[in-house]
C-alpha cells in the first residue's frame, strides 16, 4: 500500500523561518535577531538604540527614564504572585536597573471575553498593592476586550517613568575588567514556579515566584558605593546566563563566574534536574546582577545582605580582559566551560 503524502509545506531551509516561532520570545539568540532584523531598521531613535532596560530622555533640566513591558503568563496566578504583580515589579525593576527612581506607571489591559471578574479583581488589587510597596503611582491606563480565543485571559502592558540622578548611571557598556559580579538573590525561582504550576506537569513543590520591586536594593548599593556601580541587570527572561551574556556583549569584556558560588535553591535544582533544564537559563523576577569596581565590592555586598531582599546576595564572579564578550564558568572540577546564549527556548530532554 502506498501512503498519500501531502507536500510538506516547509520551503524554508533549516533554521530560517518565515514565521514567528515560540523561540522568538525566549530571550535567546532568536529574540535578538527579531529585534535587530524586524524592529530596529524601522525605528530610528538614539535612545532606543542603546537597547537598555529603559530609555533616558531629556525633559527640560531633568533626566527622565522611560521603560515599557508587556506581560503574558500562563497561569495568570501562581504561588508568590500573579500577572499584576509581575506587571508592576517588572517595569519598575527595568527603571531601577537604569539607576532611576521609579515614580509613575501606566497600565493597559487586553482582556479576553469570559475572564471571571473575580480573577480580574484579584489581579488589579495585587497591582495596587505592588505599586504601593514599590512607591509608584498608576496614573493612566486603558482596557480593551477581545473575543474569546483571541487572547490568553489577560495581557497587561505597563510603562514606567522614573527620574535618574546624573551621578548614578549604571550601563552595561561601563563594565571594565576587574569589576566584581554580585548577585542579589537565589536564581530560578520564578521560572520553575511557573513551570511547576502548569497543567499536566504533575509535580508538587513549595516553590514560589521571587517577584519583588528592587529599587530599594539598588538604592542601598548606590549609597554604599557612592554611585560607583558599573552596570545592573535583572535576569528575567533567559535567566542569569542571558543577562551576563548581554552585559559581556555590550561592554566587550569577558565574564568569569564560579559554579560553586551560584545560589540555586534545592527545590529549583531538583525540579531542573527532573525536567532536564539548566537553572542558569530559568527566569527570575526578584533579583539582579551588579557589576561593581573591586574597591567597592565588599561594601556593596554588605549593603545588599543588610536588606531582606538581598539576604542571600553573593559574589559570583568577575569581569576579565580575557575571552572578550564571552561568559565562561569555572566548574566544581576546576574545568572551564562557555555559558552561551541559547538559540531559543530550553527544550526538556528525553531521559
Amino acid at each position: 500500500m502506498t501512503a498519500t503524502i501531502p507536500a510538506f509545506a516547509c520551503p524554508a531551509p533549516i533554521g530560517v523561518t518565515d514565521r514567528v516561532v515560540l523561540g522568538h520570545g525566549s530571550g535567546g539568540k532568536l529574540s535578538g535577531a527579531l529585534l535587530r532584523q524586524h524592529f530596529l531598521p524601522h525605528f530610528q531613535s538614539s535612545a532606543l538604540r542603546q537597547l537598555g532596560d529603559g530609555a533616558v530622555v531629556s525633559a527640560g533640566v531633568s533626566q527622565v527614564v522611560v521603560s515599557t513591558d508587556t506581560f503574558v503568563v500562563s497561569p495568570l496566578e501562581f504561588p508568590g504572585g500573579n500577572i499584576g504583580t509581575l506587571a508592576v515589579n517588572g517595569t519598575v525593576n527595568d527603571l531601577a536597573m537604569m539607576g532611576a527612581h521609579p515614580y509613575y506607571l501606566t497600565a493597559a489591559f487586553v482582556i479576553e471575553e469570559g475572564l471571571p471578574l473575580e480573577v480580574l479583581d484579584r489581579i488589579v488589587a495585587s497591582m495596587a498593592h505592588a505599586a504601593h510597596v514599590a512607591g509608584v503611582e498608576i496614573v493612566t491606563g486603558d482596557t480593551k476586550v477581545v473575543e474569546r480565543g483571541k487572547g490568553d485571559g489577560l495581557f497587561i502592558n505597563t510603562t514606567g517613568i522614573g527620574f535618574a540622578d546624573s551621578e548614578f548611571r549604571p550601563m552595561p557598556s561601563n563594565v571594565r575588567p576587574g569589576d566584581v559580579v554580585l548577585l542579589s538573590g537565589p536564581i530560578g525561582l520564578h521560572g520553575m514556579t511557573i513551570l511547576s504550576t502548569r497543567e499536566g506537569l504533575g509535580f508538587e513543590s513549595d516553590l514560589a515566584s521571587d517577584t519583588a520591586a528592587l529599587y530599594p536594593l539598588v538604592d542601598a548599593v548606590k549609597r554604599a558605593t557612592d554611585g560607583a556601580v558599573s552596570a545592573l541587570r535583572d535576569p528575567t527572561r533567559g535567566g542569569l546566563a542571558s543577562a551576563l551574556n548581554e552585559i559581556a556583549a555590550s561592554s566587550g569584556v569577558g565574564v568569569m563566574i564560579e559554579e560553586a558560588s551560584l545560589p540555586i535553591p534545592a527545590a529549583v535544582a531538583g525540579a531542573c534536574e527532573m525536567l532536564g533544564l539548566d537553572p542558569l537559563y530559568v527566569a527570575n523576577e526578584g533579583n539582579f546582577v551588579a557589576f561593581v569596581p573591586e574597591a567597592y565590592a565588599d561594601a556593596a555586598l554588605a549593603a545588599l545582605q543588610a536588606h531582606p531582599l538581598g539576604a542571600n546576595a553573593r559574589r559570583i564572579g568577575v569581569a576579565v580582559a580575557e575571552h572578550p564578550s564571552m561568559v565562561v564558568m569555572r566548574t566544581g572540577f576546576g574545568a572551564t566551560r562557555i555559558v552561551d546564549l541559547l538559540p531559543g527556548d530550553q527544550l526538556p530532554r528525553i531521559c
Partner: protein
Amino acid sequence: MKYLSEYRDGTIGRAIADRIRATATKQWMIMELCGGQTHTIVRQGIDELLSGVVEMIHGPGCPVCVTPLEQIDRAVHLASRPDVILTSFGDMLRVPGSECDLLQVRARGGAIRVVYSPLDAVKMAIDNPDKQVVFFAVGFETTAPANAMAVWRAAQLDVSNFSMLVSHVTVPPAMLAILDAPDNHVQAFLAAGHVCTVMGWEEYEPIAAKYQVPIIVTGFEPVDILEGIWLAVQQLEAGEARVENQYVRSVRRDGNLPARKLVSKIFRVADRKWRGIGEIPGSGLAIREEFADFDAERRFALEDLATNEPAECRSGDVLRGRIKPNECPMFGTACVPDHPMGAPMVSSEGACAAYFNYGRTRIKGTAAPKGVKESV
C-alpha cells in the same frame, strides 16, 4: 541537593582522577555509551583531567541523535495533518528533518505538544476524541517501559484514537556493531546506568567475555563517571574483562523485572536504522502484532515514507566514536545549534552540542570559529 551534590564534589572527583593517573601505565581508550555521560564529561572537563592516561570516546547513546531522518520526516508528516495532535518529548522538536523541523510545523499551525510522560498523551487522546493523538516514542531501553505502559493503558481503556510512532533502539546490538568494526579502538565501555536500571546487565556478560572488554555499569554524575573509569582502568591494567557495577544505588543484575516484562509484552525485537550509522539487525523495538492498532506506522500507512541521510553530516562517524565532533569540517561553521545539520548538534545529550555549548574548542584560543557570533 541531598544525595546529588555529593556526586558532584570536585575534591572527591580529583582524588579519583589522581588514583587513575597513578594506576594507568599507558593510555586506554574507553567509550561512554550514554549521551548524558558525554555531557557530564565535557561539561566538567573530565576528559581534560585524564588526558594522557584515558581517552574518552563518545558513544552512540543519545536517543535523539540516533533517531533516523526518516522517522523525523514521518513525525513531520503526521504533525502536518489537520486531524493529528503529535506529542513528543521536548528535544525532538528542533531536530532537523529533511525539509523542516517540528517547531516550524507548529508555527505553521501543526498541533504539536510537548509532554513529560507518554501517559499524558493517552490522557490527551481521551480528552480529544475527535483527534488522533500520536506519541513520538523515542529512546533506548530507559524510556521503553513508560512507552509500553502507555500502549497497555490505551488498550485497557480502549482508547482508539491513540497511537505511537516508535523509534526505539537498544544498546547491546550497537556495542556489537562498534566492536565488530575493523577500525575499532574501544578497549572498555561505560554502560549507561539508566538503561541497566531497567534491563540489568546479564546481556552484557557474554559481550565482555567474547570481546575481552571490561564493561562498567556507570551513573551520570561526575564522581560516578570517574569511579566507572577507575574500575575500568583497574581491569584493563590487570588484563581482566568483566561486567562490573558502579551504579549500585540504582542497578541490579536482573534489572527491573516488572518493567522488562511489560516491555516484552508490548514490543518485539526489530531491525532499526540508526541515524548516521544505518540499519543494525535486531537493534530496536517495534510494537507487537497484538497491539498493532496502536502502531502509528500502520494506522497512517507510513511504511513507504523513506528518506536517505545527507552525505555531508558526519554524525555517523561521531556516533561511532571515529571522529571527535570538532573534527567534522562543518562543526562550528555550517553546523551550529542555531542551524544544526545533524541531530547531535541539537539534542541536550548530543556530543556535537556538548562540544559546542561548553566551548571545548573556543575558550583557550578565545576567537570564536567563523560564523559563530553572526549565526543568528
